[in-house]
């Protein structure tokens, strides 16, 4: 077995043939991506330039659907609602989840059991969660107003008020998804090295300084991951809102998803709904770029 390795013989066209062979292996992936991403996407763009309701003939209208959206107050408000909801539903779980993780990272009796209990909301079905919260929000019979009355506070209208509906929906979201952030951050904490803490303590650092200059910067990548996951979840939030408020009272909690659902599946207004999807996609794309940018910049922390 000592025959020397033969050099690859140079033959014209060899590399080109070999490259062709590579392409062949990419075909299955390309087919899947084409069928489930590219084609639906192009088809959506195509539908968005038609005036088409299911059951009637489609007319080409060019950019009319988009122009109408630009002046459609209800749609524009739904964008504002989406951002308002997303902002609260990302930041609050992030803060509370991090705090919970810091607590559960310490040693104390029954830590394991308590940690398990804390993560339980995450396992519940969103629609079931929403139905239970709807009952708790009831302004006359709900348990939340009863609890408020116990501490001497006046009753609140919760999701039945146009101004409180989004914060109330966020409350459900926070209850449901803070444990997820906690788990991610807890994973991060477990992976942190102990040496920086020892040397900082020798130098006389306070607890706050330990957190601000060691824990927080080292955790930043995990926080970003949690923020990205929460943002995706909050942007696509539908079930909770649909079950609890149906976008109401009036249109006070109508996010883009709810508006989209109405247009597509209640009014069968496919052309308009497609235009909404395209606009929403552009918004998400822009947001994703911002998040990527933030991730690049996290070195400052």
């Amino acid at each position: 077995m000592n025959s020397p390795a033969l050099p690859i013989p140079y033959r014209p066209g060899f590399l080109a043939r070999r490259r062709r062979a590579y392409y062949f292996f990419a075909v299955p992936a390309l087919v899947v991506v084409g069928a489930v991403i590219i084609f639906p996407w192009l088809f959506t763009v195509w539908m968005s330039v038609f005036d088409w309701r299911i059951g009637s003939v489609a007319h080409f209208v060019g950019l009319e659907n988009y122009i109408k959206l630009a002046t459609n107050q209800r749609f524009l408000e739904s964008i504002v609602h989406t951002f308002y909801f997303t902002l609260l539903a990302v930041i609050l779980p992030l803060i509370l989840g991090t705090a919970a993780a810091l607590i559960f990272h310490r040693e104390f009796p029954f830590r394991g059991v308590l940690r398990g209990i804390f993560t339980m909301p995450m396992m519940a079905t969103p629609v079931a969660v929403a139905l239970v919260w709807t009952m708790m929000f009831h302004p006359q019979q709900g348990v939340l107003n009863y609890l408020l009355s116990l501490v001497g506070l006046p009753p609140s209208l919760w999701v039945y008020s146009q101004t409180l509906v989004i914060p109330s929906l966020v409350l459900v979201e926070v209850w449901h998804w803070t444990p997820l952030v906690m788990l991610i951050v807890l994973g991060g904490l477990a992976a942190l090295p102990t040496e920086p803490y020892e040397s900082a303590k020798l130098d006389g650092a306070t607890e706050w300084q330990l957190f601000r200059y060691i824990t927080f910067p080292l955790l930043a990548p995990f926080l970003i991951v949690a923020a990205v996951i929460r943002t995706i979840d909050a942007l696509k939030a539908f079930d909770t809102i649909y079950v609890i408020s149906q976008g109401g009272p009036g249109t006070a909690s109508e996010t883009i998803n709810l508006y989209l659902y109405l247009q597509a599946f209640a009014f069968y207004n496919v052309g308009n709904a497609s235009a909404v999807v395209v606009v929403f996609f552009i918004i998400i794309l822009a947001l994703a770029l911002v998040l990527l940018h933030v991730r690049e910049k996290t070195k400052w922390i």
Partner: protein
Amino acid sequence: MSQPIHDDRPDALRRRLLGAGAGAVALGALSGAALIQAQGSGAFDWKRFKGEKIEIFLVKSPRGDLLTRFHKEFEDLTGIVVGSEMVPEQQQRQKAVIEFNSGNPSFDVIALSYHVQKRQFAKNNWLTDLRPMIADKSLADPALDFADFAQGGLNYAVEPDGRVNSLPLNLDPWVVYYNKELFDAKGIAFPKTFAEMQDAAAKLTDSGKGIAGFVARGLKNANVPVWTSFLLGYGGSFIDGKGKLLTDSSEAIDAGKMYQVMLGKYGPPGVAGFNWNESQSLFLQGKAAMWLDGIGFAQPLEDPTKSRIVGKVGYGVMPAGPKRQVSALFGDGEGISTYSKKKGPAWFYLQWASNKMNQTRMLQAAAGAPVRNSAYAAAQSSSDFKAPKQWVECMLTSARIAQPGLPVISPVTEFRDVFGVALTNMINGADPAAELKKATADFQPVLDKSEKA
């Protein structure tokens, strides 16, 4: 479609059926000959389509459950094999649209909600005209007897051009549930007019005790029938003969003002987000004096495990408006797909599903309010029938003064959405005239387009 108040003796019904009136002319044409001939014939051959198989597409509901439970009985009677599918209401509506559009739906018989699907199905010609089969005495069971059907249901089954696209099964007129204890405590009688109703609500509202004088749906979309209940009493209607909306007329605005007062002033806090379930739970707790909604809630109200007001519930007919007394009506029935290749067996299924036995069962199981008048007497004679007598009377009276509670148009859901938002805004203080004007302007183009396409 104006509809005078009728008595409901079978003879009067039949004369009415065979007589004048837009819907009745059509039915006269079909039933005059068909009914009499059919009733003259002897034994009816149910086994004619033995061995065939049909597919039924139902809505998941107590009624759908009930029919499905007795499919075996139909199979034994006819020798026809039944395959059935039950889907929740919203999904059923979506699936129906998609399947019909495909041109090859998987079902022969489909359940439809008249207030949502009637115009959509008729305009697209998705349902089979039943008249030839009703007229054919070898196909129509003599016991079909249209004279037994409540007029409100027949109005729903017949199209303006005379086609009969379905058989009605269930009616849902809107009524006023009231708390007799609260009324008695203040010495107030159940209101007979809108003015008395507002007056009673004012007197019964007691925010100190957390009691609302009135409760009904405030949540957009769901709330529209509350407003149309008022609108019909004020003498308003939805659309004129040329397809122009009448929803910003003075009657509509008066109804809007009444809606604003009844819910905004006498309704509970947060009513703008109430659907029927929130309203129901408030009423069940004895915290609302009146509740306007569909007639189908007697069962929970009389159930001691759910209700604190068992035996104290009054079932009142919708009070009269300044112009007339109308109960807003909803309902459902079954039709045969125009694409079906088994129309004969499917027609047999329709007749079986709407027969007296099944209609009586529906009432006994509290699964709905049957369209057959005879079912009420039949059910009451049975010992395990629990619904209060006043409920039955309320149902029969309401069905007589009933008119469609929503316009019979294709984009009903969008209508409810647009006007629902306007109504919710009214509860929160917006001007009814301005809101209705805006909603009408927004919706008119949608309606125009739906009728043109």
